[in-house]
């Protein structure tokens, strides 16, 4: 999420930079898995409400697929806006 945090470590020995980078990598993997888990929970909760059988209905599958796609697009958009704000790139009010 924040690779340029490494910039602050300019003076650090190579070994520490690598440790830092590996810490960031692991945090990102953990975060992706968490995001994945929360996406599944949300789309399941919103789309599945019939427990009269064990398999998904066609309509539930469609709902889950759309939900997941919307969620991913939403995440990307939020990520872009979030990055802009982090860099102080404010735009006029509207």
């Amino acid at each position: 999420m924040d690779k340029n945090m490494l910039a602050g470590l300019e003076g650090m020995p190579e070994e520490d930079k690598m440790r830092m980078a590996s810490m960031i990598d692991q945090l990102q993997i953990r975060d992706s898995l968490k995001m994945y888990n929360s996406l599944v929970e949300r789309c399941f909760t919103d789309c599945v409400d019939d427990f009269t059988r064990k398999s998904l209905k066609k309509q539930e599958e469609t709902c889950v697929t759309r939900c997941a796609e919307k969620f991913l697009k939403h995440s990307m958009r939020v990520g872009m806006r979030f990055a802009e704000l982090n860099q102080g790139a404010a735009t006029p009010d509207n």
Partner: protein
Amino acid sequence: MAANNSPLPAGVTKEQAFGMAETEMEYRVELFNRLSQTCFSKCVDKRYKESELNMGENSCIDRCVSKYWLVNGLVGQMLSAGGQRPM
């Protein structure tokens, strides 16, 4: 980094292997917990009139677990296919 006769993939240190194993287990634990919480909410009557799960609740739980598992797989497939399947 050292003569390698370990079962680890090349370029992966032991620390990283432990880190990955831990992350993987945390993921499974979280999946289980979310599934469990969600199916409890969907299937169990909140009035708690008795301390046993009745037949309706039990079969609801079985199906809920099955469907959650399928949804998990469906989303996983989507994501590994690039997540951007046009539709």
